């Protein structure tokens, strides 16, 4: 297997995630797109770990998964709070800090 096939797959997934973050207006779906991007990074870490025969790739992918879990927990708490205060989680309506 070529290393590049995994890296290209991860790059495509990452760019789809970027598109989702920029184009979605539902906050939950923006968080889901961020998960896509984190997953692409994990594929990269694991592929490089397999290529170098080094365990560090897998260990750091585990750390990324842990941090993704923490991020989703806090992010969804914020989304629920926004919904409670404004009765909407559309991101283009949450413009309180707009200059």
């Amino acid at each position, binding site marked *: 297997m070529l290393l590049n096939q995994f890296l290209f797959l991860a*790059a495509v997934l990452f760019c789809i995630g970027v598109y989702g973050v920029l184009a979605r207006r539902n906050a939950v779906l923006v968080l889901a797109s961020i998960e896509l991007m984190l997953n692409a990074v994990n594929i990269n870490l694991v592929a490089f770990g397999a290529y170098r025969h080094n365990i560090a790739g897998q260990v750091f992918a585990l750390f990324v998964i842990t941090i993704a879990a923490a991020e989703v927990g806090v992010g969804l708490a914020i989304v629920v709070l926004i919904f409670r205060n404004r009765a909407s989680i559309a991101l283009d309506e949450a413009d309180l800090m707009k200059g």
Partner: protein
Amino acid sequence: MVAQNVVFGILAAVMILAAWRVVTTQNVVRAVLYLVVVLAGAGAQYLLLAQEFIFVVQVIVYIGAIVVLFLFGTMLTRAPIGRDVNLDNDQRWLAALTSLFLLGVMIAVLFDAFHNTHVKPTIQRTSDVANSMFGPYLMPFEVVSVLLLAALVGAIAIARRD
């Protein structure tokens, strides 16, 4: 090696299609369920690279916990479940342009750096992961556990009613 490449191709096609549906479907629950397909495909790719422990963690943490959190999030925010609504904002074309540009840059750089580099996966056992995580990487492990605790307390403090 050929069989592995065929499996990789099928998995990659399914993952990219499902990821595309995640960011384009106009149904919140369906988007989250397509995310499950992408996450399971990523787990299968880890298995293809002979890294078993991360596959198990992917299934347990991502598909088991994070997707359930997402479904709870859609439920608690009273998203239009089962109905199709407009979930995209008006900068869709700009977003597509940005991500295509990023994809072009990344593909060019990766092709330049790693073309003709082959992966020959060797099995990395769970005991190796444990020895590594509780040996050289003990300090990051402890830091991550403190971070998880802080995120737990923070999520409860943010979301509770008072």
